[in-house]
């Protein structure tokens, strides 16, 4: 079905692989550590309401591997360039996991082109005594199993035929994630200080059985980000948008209609 266009766009000399489909208010989806697994049903559903853009971050997936990308600050500044170059306004920014962290880094720097922020199982801060799971130490197969409540999703991934290209992408994604988040592990100790600078309506969505970033983080973000709303999705793990597409899309569009229309 893939009602999206895939193209490589150029942002100040860096080629970014972009999936884009649908129409309506612009929505930018920032993927997590493992990248984008294609135009999944959730994206298709969101594109009914939105001009949805799902890029591969620089170094990830099919995007270029620029030599300027050293840390999360660089990536956040890059996406501000992205919004400028694409001349996007009133953007609904959605970020999952590492992408949620990135979304916050963008928003604390500049919210003027944003209309709302949605954090899904976001990394980026640390609650003392509740570390984010060490995705680098875990056996990759175990990690896939930990991500989902419904193990049929894990089975599908683990039984997928491994092509050379796919393997390259997986390795590159993993290395890119380590570059951004090895030390300290997947958070920025200074981010918490600046979350008050997020001035757009913020929606915190979490799988109630997330074993990667504990649901306690949903409550923590809900508490720190003024005026934010928390939605827990039942029987979902770290990727509720993959495991529970309908509930997820309903939650996202419901919030936007109510708070950021």
């Amino acid at each position, binding site marked *: 079905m893939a009602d999206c266009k895939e193209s490589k766009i150029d942002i100040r000399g860096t080629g970014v692989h972009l999936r884009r489909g649908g129409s309506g208010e612009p929505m930018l989806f920032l993927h997590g550590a493992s990248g984008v697994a294609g135009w999944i049903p959730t994206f298709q559903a969101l594109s009914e309401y939105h001009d949805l853009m799902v890029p591969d971050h620089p170094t990830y997936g099919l995007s270029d591997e620029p030599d300027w990308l050293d840390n999360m600050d660089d990536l956040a500044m890059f996406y501000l360039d992205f919004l400028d170059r694409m001349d996007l306004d009133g953007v609904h920014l959605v970020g999952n996991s590492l992408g949620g962290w990135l979304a916050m880094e963008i928003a604390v720097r500049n919210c003027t082109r944003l209309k709302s922020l949605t954090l899904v199982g976001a990394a980026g801060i640390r609650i003392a005594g509740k570390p984010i799971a060490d995705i*680098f*130490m*875990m*056996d*990759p197969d175990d990690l896939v199993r930990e991500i989902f409540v419904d193990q049929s999703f894990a089975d599908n991934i683990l039984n997928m035929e491994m092509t050379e290209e796919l*393997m*390259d992408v997986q*390795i*590159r994604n*993993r*290395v890119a*994630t*380590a*570059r951004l988040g*090895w*030390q*300290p592990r997947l958070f920025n100790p200074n981010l918490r200080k600046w979350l008050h600078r997020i001035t757009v309506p913020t929606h915190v969505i979490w799988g109630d059985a997330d074993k990667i970033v504990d649901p306690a983080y949903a409550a923590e973000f809900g508490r720190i980000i003024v005026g934010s709303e928390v939605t827990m999705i039942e029987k979902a793990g770290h990727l509720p948008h993959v495991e529970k597409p309908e509930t997820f899309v309903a939650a996202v569009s419901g919030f936007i209609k109510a708070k950021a229309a």
Partner: protein
Amino acid sequence: MFHLMPYAGLDMKERDRHKSAWVTLPNSLYDPEVGHELYNRYLDELELAAELGFDGVAINEHHQNAYGLMPSPVVMASSLARRTEGCKLAILGNAFALREHPLTLAEEHAMIDCITGGRLITGFVRGIGAEFYSMAANPTLSHERHMEAHDLVIRAWTEKGPFAFEGKHYHFEYVNMWPRPYQEPHPPIWCPSLGSTETIEWAAHPDRRYVYAQNYSAFTNVCKFLDQYREVAATQYGYNASSEQIAWTAPVYVAETDEQAVAEATEHMETLFNKFLYLPFEKLFPPGYLSMHSYKRVAAHKKNVLGGAKMETLMETGVVIVGSPETVRRRIAECHEVLGFGTFVSLLQFGTLPADKTERNIRLFAEEVLPAIQPLSDREYRGFEPATAAAE
């Protein structure tokens, strides 16, 4: 003689409740009373080797594990500094780039070099994958930090201070090392490795010509990598590598007869490989530690990298050398004939090998093997044929 200083007192039942002896094996399994005995026993063993005429003693760095109790080989080298005379002290190696401040190590090496009047050999390593978990250093930056740390240290050792170092990973306004190293221009640098092409090419570079030390591996790999070094020097850089640039490390056990040697060493040797060395893949190769190319090559052989080693196989593949003095002598001489390494680094204590057997191993090696192998030189080396190395 090389020592790993393993925690031989490890409760193996407890050990087996954990995947490996690295990073997360609780240190409640470490008993300081036992450690105190072991450290002093191991240092005695190295001092004995120095006394018995070994050309050098060597130690290395590993963190948070029971495989090797030396998070700081600097401590061991310092302790040996004034307890040995004449022999080299080789730190093989120290991971400079695991530190935010590689100059702290450079200072320590310079101090030891001064104290010993120039007996230090400095090994530059990146540290194995597990250290990046223990030390919270980012493995994706490991390679470039390693290079930059090297450049910083060499400049600090050789240039008059103070100068500013303006690197990507390291910035220092005032580099001005007191003391400077004793050796001119600096201690010899060795690159111990498991056979990474990047390391070989970097070490062989004519600006450096650092000694490449192949860590214990199957003999076919030892051949491949040591010849690769000579090959790289000859074809890529256009010079003939001296045999002094080549070193090989192997666990060795000598007893009166072949049978006795095998019988006595088996349990301890297998412990080295299966209990102490074993590391799960993700801990051994954290993301970005290897280049994409190397990572895929290693990942393809993932299943048979480590674990489940048997003495028979270890001997057959030539990872270890075990036997009577005659057998060991012959084996090393044969290997030298093929490879012409200028230095042989013997690991005479491994795994749980106890004090009495280690001492006898050291004495037999010193008395019966050393005198036969120390005179070996390029005369006994069959010579390097680039074609052979390239063909393989």
